[in-house]
C-alpha cells in the first residue's frame, strides 16, 4: 500500500475537478470540430463523460481508509447517543470500571509474582539445588553437598551458596548501632546473579576460604543511606559486631534479591568439613545448552558419589538431588491462590457484563424505532450491529480506562491489608509497576467485555420487524419475547455466578473463624517478642551467650510490670529448626535413627513465660547448664508419637546422631513433657518438638546457631508490653554490651502474620462476593421493574377483569423468584465442582460445607425477594384506566 495516496486529499480532489473540467473542454472542442453546435457539443461531452462527481468520489474513496472513516462516524454517533442518556452511560461505565479495576489489581499481582521473569540476566538458566526425598523436594544444603555440586562443572557455570534468611549483623561504631540484613554468600554469588558492581570488586576465592579475613560488599541502599554514597568507601573499614571489616565493593541499585540484603559477607566454608547441618541455600547457573533434565541426570550420579564419599547414612535410600528453576522455586505455593483469585474476579467481571448487557437490552428495546428507521433507510444488519458494538466498546473502553486507575489504586490498598509474605512483589509491592503486560491485559478484557455484553443486545436488536416497529406509536407495547427471554437468562447467569462467589467467600470466612478459634497452646496476650542478633566472635561459645541470657533476664525482670522472661532460638509460629534423634537402647530397625522432631534451645523460663503447661516431670532450672547432666524436655506430640506405650521420662535420647561435629554430644535424660503448641501455624497439627537448655548447647552448635538465627526474647508483662519498649531495649543493650534489638512484635502480631494469607483471601473473596451480590440484586430489580413497566397494559387489563392486587403481586414475585431459584440451582451445581479448587485453603471446613451451601442460597433468595418486592408492589398500583388509556 502506498502512503502517498492518503495525503493531501483536498488539494488533489481540487486538481481532479480541474482535470475533469479540462477533459470536458477538450471533448467539446472535438465535438465542435466535427461541426456540432455549441450546446450539443457540451451536452454530448457531459453525457460521454458521465457523472463527474462519481469519479471524484471514487478517487476520494480510493484515497481513504473507509473502515476508519466509518468507525469515526460510528464513534461520534455512539458518543452522541450515550450523551443523550447520561444516567445509563454513567452506571454502565462505573459497573465496568469496578469490575475491570478488580481484575486489573489481581492481575497485576499475578503478573509480578508469576509472569515477570526474575530480574537477573538470563534468568532461565538459574536453578535452585534441591534435596529429593520420597516425601518431596526441599531446598537447603550443607557444606559437603555444596562442595560436591560445586565440582559439577560439566553442567553448571557457577554454583553459589547463600543464607536462607540470615541472622542479621550489627553495625557498631558511629553514633547509633544498627541491625542490618547481612547475607553470607560464597564467592561466585555475584557472578552467578550477574550483580552490577559499581565500585570496587566482589569476593575473591581466597577471601571466601577459611581465614580469608573480614571483608564485605555493600548494597546500594546501605552505601547511600548510611554512608552518604561516600565515593571512597571501598578500601575503608566498617565495624560489624565490633570487628573491622574491609569494604571491597558496592553493588548497583538494580540488584534486588528475594531476601533483601544490606550487605554481604563471605561464607568462608571449610570444604573439608563433614558438617551435615543444612543451613543455607544453593543455586546454580546452568551451562549454555544444558537443560534441567540433563542436569538432573548428572545429579543422580553425584548422589551416588555423595554416598561413597560420606557414607550410606549421609543420604537416606531413595534420596537424591535435583534442580528446579529458580523462578519456579521463588513462586512457591502462590500459584493456586492467585489463579483462584483470578477466577473469582473473572466471575465478578462476568456478572458486571451480564448487568450491562441487561441495561443495553432495555435500551435497545426503547430504541427499536430508531433501528427500524435506519434499516428502512437502507442500513444493513451488519451496520446496525457494528453501530451497537461501537457503542458498547465505547462504554467498555471508557470503563477500562477508569478501571486501570482504580485497579492501580486498588493494588496499593490490597497490599496495605498485609497479604502475608507474597513472594516477588518487592518492599510494599514496589515490584508491581504499570507494564505492557498489565496494559495489554486491561485493554484485552475491556474489548472482550465490550464484545460480550454488546453482542447479545446488538444481535437481538438488529432483527427488527420493520412494519411492526414503525407502525407502533409508542415504545410501551412490549420489548419482544426474545429479548425478554434473553434478559431472564442473563439474570439467571448472574445469580448462578454470585452463588459460586458467595459460597467460596463463605467457606473462607468459616476457615478464618476456625483458625482464629484454634488455641495456639501458648499465651499471646501481653507477650512481646524481640530478636537479638548474637553475631560476632564473642558468641562463638555457649558460656558468653548463656551469660547474656542470665544478665538480660535479670535486668528485664527488674523493670516494673514485667512478669516473666524467656529466651529461645526459635520464634513460635514463624518456623524453627528440626533435628534427628535416637532413643538410647531402642532398636532402630531399618532406619538409621529413631526419628526427627522440632529442635528448640530455650532458657529455663521459656515455658512459664509463654504459659506452656508442664504435663509431667520437671521444667528446666537455671542450674541446667554446661556443668550439669544433659537434659531434654519433649512435647506431648513427641511423647505420643515415639512413646506410644512406654514412659519417656525413663529414657535418654541422643540428639543429632551423625549430624556432624556441631551436634556431637552425649545422651540427654528426658525430664519433662510439656503441652503441644501450634508452632507450624494454627492450620497444622502440633508436631513433635524437643527442647534443650540454651546453656547446655555444645560450643560448636552455639557458634552455628549464632550465625544462622537470632535469639528471641519473650517478655510477658502486666501491662501492654508496647509501653515497655524503651526500658526493655535499654536493659538488653546493657546486658549484651551494646547489641541492638530488632523485630519487636507482640505474639498477637506474630500470630496475625501467620493467618495473614487466610485473612487476605477471605477479605478479597468477601469483597468480590458482596460486589457480585449487589450487582445481582440490581440486575434482578432492573429486569422485574422493566417487565412491569412493559406490561402495564396487560396488568391493567387483568385488574379491569377483576384480578386482586395480591394476585398480581404474587404473580410478579413468582416470576422473579423462578428466575432466582433456577439461577441459584445452577450456581449450587457449579459450586459443587469449583469449591474443590479451594480445598487447600480451607481449615476445619469441607469444600462441600453444608452451612455455606445452605446459607448462601437462602441469603441470595432473600436478597432477590427484597429486590423484587418494590416492582411487585408497583404492579399492584397500576390504575386500569390509565393503563388502558395509554394505548
Amino acid at each position, binding site marked *: 500500500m*502506498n502512503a*502517498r*495516496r492518503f495525503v493531501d486529499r483536498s488539494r*488533489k480532489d481540487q*486538481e*481532479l475537478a*480541474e*482535470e*475533469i473540467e*479540462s*477533459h470536458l*473542454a*477538450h*471533448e467539446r*472542442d*472535438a*465535438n465542435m470540430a*466535427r461541426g*456540432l453546435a455549441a450546446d450539443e457539443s457540451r451536452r*454530448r461531452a457531459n453525457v*460521454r*463523460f*458521465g*457523472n463527474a462527481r*462519481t*469519479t471524484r468520489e*471514487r*478517487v476520494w474513496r*480510493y*484515497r481513504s481508509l473507509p473502515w476508519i472513516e466509518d468507525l469515526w462516524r460510528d464513534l461520534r454517533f455512539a458518543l452522541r447517543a450515550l450523551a443523550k442518556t447520561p444516567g445509563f452511560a454513567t452506571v454502565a461505565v462505573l459497573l465496568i470500571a469496578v469490575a475491570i479495576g478488580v481484575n486489573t489489581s489481581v492481575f497485576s499481582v499475578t503478573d509480578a509474582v508469576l509472569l515477570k521473569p526474575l530480574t537477573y540476566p538470563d534468568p532461565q538458566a538459574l536453578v535452585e539445588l534441591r534435596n529429593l526425598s520420597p516425601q518431596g523436594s526441599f531446598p537447603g544444603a550443607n557444606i559437603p553437598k555444596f562442595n560436591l555440586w560445586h565440582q559439577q562443572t560439566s553442567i553448571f557455570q557457577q554454583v553459589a551458596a547463600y543464607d536462607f534468611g540470615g541472622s542479621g549483623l550489627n553495625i557498631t561504631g558511629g553514633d547509633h548501632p544498627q541491625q542490618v540484613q547481612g547475607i553470607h554468600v560464597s564467592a561466585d554469588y555475584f557472578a552467578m546473579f550477574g550483580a552490577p558492581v559499581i565500585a570496587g570488586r566482589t569476593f575473591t576465592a581466597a577471601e571466601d576460604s577459611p581465614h580469608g579475613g573480614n571483608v564485605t560488599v555493600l548494597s546500594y541502599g546501605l552505601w547511600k543511606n548510611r554512608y552518604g554514597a561516600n565515593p571512597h568507601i571501598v578500601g575503608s573499614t566498617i565495624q560489624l559486631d565490633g570487628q573491622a571489616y574491609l569494604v571491597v565493593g558496592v553493588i548497583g541499585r538494580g540488584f534486588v534479591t528475594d531476601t533483601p540484603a544490606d550487605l554481604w559477607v563471605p561464607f568462608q566454608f571449610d570444604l573439608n568439613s563433614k558438617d551435615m547441618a543444612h543451613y543455607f541455600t544453593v543455586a546454580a547457573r546452568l551451562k549454555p545448552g544444558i537443560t534441567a533434565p540433563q542436569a538432573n541426570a548428572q545429579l543422580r550420579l553425584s548422589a551416588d558419589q555423595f554416598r561413597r564419599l560420606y557414607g550410606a547414612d549421609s543420604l537416606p535410600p531413595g534420596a537424591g538431588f535435583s534442580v528446579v528453576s529458580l523462578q519456579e522455586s521463588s513462586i512457591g505455593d502462590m500459584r493456586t491462590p492467585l489463579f483462584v483469585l483470578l477466577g473469582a474476579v473473572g466471575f465478578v467481571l462476568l456478572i458486571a457484563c451480564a448487568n450491562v448487557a441487561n441495561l443495553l437490552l432495555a435500551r435497545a428495546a426503547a430504541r427499536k424505532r430508531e433501528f427500524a428507521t435506519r434499516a428502512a433507510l437502507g442500513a444493513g444488519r451488519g451496520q446496525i450491529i457494528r453501530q451497537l458494538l461501537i457503542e458498547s466498546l465505547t462504554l467498555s473502553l471508557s470503563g477500562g480506562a477508569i478501571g486501570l486507575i482504580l485497579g492501580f489504586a486498588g493494588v496499593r490498598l490490597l497490599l496495605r491489608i498485609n497479604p502475608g509474605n507474597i513472594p516477588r512483589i518487592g518492599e510494599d509491592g514496589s515490584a508491581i509497576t504499570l507494564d505492557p503486560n498489565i496494559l495489554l491485559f486491561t485493554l484485552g478484557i475491556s474489548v472482550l467485555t465490550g464484545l460480550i455484553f454488546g453482542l447479545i443486545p446488538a444481535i437481538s436488536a438488529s432483527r427488527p420487524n420493520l412494519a411492526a416497529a414503525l407502525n407502533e406509536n409508542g415504545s410501551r407495547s412490549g420489548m419482544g419475547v426474545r429479548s425478554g427471554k434473553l434478559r431472564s437468562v442473563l439474570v439467571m447467569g448472574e445469580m448462578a455466578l454470585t452463588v459460586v462467589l458467595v459460597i467460596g467467600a463463605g467457606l473462607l470466612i468459616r476457615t478464618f473463624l476456625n483458625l482464629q478459634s484454634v488455641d495456639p497452646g501458648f499465651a499471646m496476650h501481653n507477650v512481646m517478642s524481640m530478636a537479638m542478633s548474637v553475631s560476632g566472635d564473642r558468641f562463638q561459645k555457649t558460656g558468653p551467650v548463656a551469660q547474656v541470657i542470665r544478665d538480660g533476664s535479670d535486668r528485664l525482670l527488674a523493670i516494673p510490670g514485667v512478669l516473666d522472661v524467656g529466651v529461645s532460638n526459635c520464634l513460635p509460629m514463624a518456623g524453627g529448626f528440626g533435628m534427628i534423634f535416637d532413643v538410647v537402647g531402642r532398636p532402630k530397625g531399618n532406619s538409621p535413627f529413631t526419628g526427627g522432631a522440632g529442635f528448640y534451645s530455650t532458657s529455663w523460663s521459656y515455658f512459664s513465660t509463654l504459659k506452656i503447661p508442664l504435663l509431667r516431670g520437671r521444667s528446666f532450672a537455671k542450674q541446667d547448664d554446661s556443668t550439669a547432666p544433659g537434659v531434654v524436655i519433649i512435647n506431648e506430640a513427641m511423647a505420643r508419637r515415639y512413646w506410644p506405650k512406654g514412659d519417656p521420662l525413663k529414657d535418654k535420647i541422643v540428639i543429632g546422631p551423625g549430624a556432624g561435629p556441631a551436634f556431637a554430644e552425649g545422651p540427654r535424660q528426658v525430664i519433662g513433657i510439656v503441652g503441644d503448641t501450634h508452632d507450624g501455624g494454627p492450620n497444622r497439627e502440633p508436631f513433635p518438638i524437643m527442647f534443650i537448655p540454651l546453656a547446655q548447647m555444645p560450643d560448636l552448635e552455639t557458634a552455628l546457631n549464632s550465625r544462622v538465627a537470632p535469639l528471641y526474647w519473650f517478655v510477658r508483662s502486666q501491662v501492654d508490653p508496647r509501653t515497655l519498649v524503651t526500658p526493655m531495649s535499654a536493659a538488653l543493650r546493657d546486658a549484651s554490651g551494646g547489641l541492638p534489638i530488632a523485630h519487636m512484635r507482640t505474639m498477637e502480631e506474630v500470630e496475625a502474620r501467620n493467618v495473614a494469607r487466610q485473612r487476605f483471601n477471605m477479605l478479597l473473596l468477601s469483597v468480590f462476593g458482596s460486589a457480585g451480590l449487589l450487582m445481582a440484586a440490581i440486575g434482578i430489580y432492573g429486569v422485574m421493574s422493566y417487565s412491569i413497566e412493559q406490561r402495564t397494559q396487560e396488568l391493567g387489563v387483568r385488574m379491569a377483569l377483576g384480578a386482586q392486587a395480591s394476585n398480581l403481586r404474587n404473580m410478579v414475585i413468582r416470576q422473579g423468584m423462578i428466575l432466582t431459584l433456577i439461577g441459584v440451582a445452577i450456581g449450587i451445581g457449579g459450586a459443587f465442582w469449583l469449591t474443590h479448587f479451594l480445598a487447600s485453603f480451607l481449615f476445619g471446613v469441607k469444600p462441600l460445607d453444608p452451612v455455606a451451601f445452605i446459607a448462601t442460597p437462602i441469603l441470595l433468595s432473600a436478597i432477590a425477594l427484597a429486590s423484587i418486592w418494590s416492582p411487585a408492589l408497583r404492579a399492584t398500583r397500576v390504575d386500569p384506566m390509565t393503563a388502558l388509556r395509554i394505548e
Partner: protein
Amino acid sequence: MVMNRPPDAGEILQGTLDMLILRTLVLGPAHGHTIAEAIERTSENALEVEQGSLYPALHRLEDRGWLSSEWGVSENNRKAKYYQLTSKGRKELAAAAGRWRRMTHAIGLILGESFE
C-alpha cells in the same frame, strides 16, 4: 452520428487499462483526453475507455510512482494536466506487457484452432 464505434465495442478488461495507459505514454507526455482518444483510435475503436475509470487509474498510477504529472497548455490552448512515464513506469510496462503476452499465448493455446 459522430460516435461510429461498432456496437460490440468492448469494455476494457479489468487490470489492462493501466497497461494501456502506460503504453500510450511511451510516445510522449499527454493529458487525459488525449490518452483516452489515443487508446480508442489505436484500437480502431474496438476499445472504449470509460471516462469514470480513466482518472482514478491515472491518479493511482501516479501514486505508485509510475507516472509524473504537471500542468501545461494543450494544443487547443487550454489548461491541461500532462502525464509522463517515469523510469519505474517503463519497467512496469515491460513487465505488464510480458505478463499479457504470456497470458494471451496461453489462452490461444487453449482455444486452439478455433481461435485462428
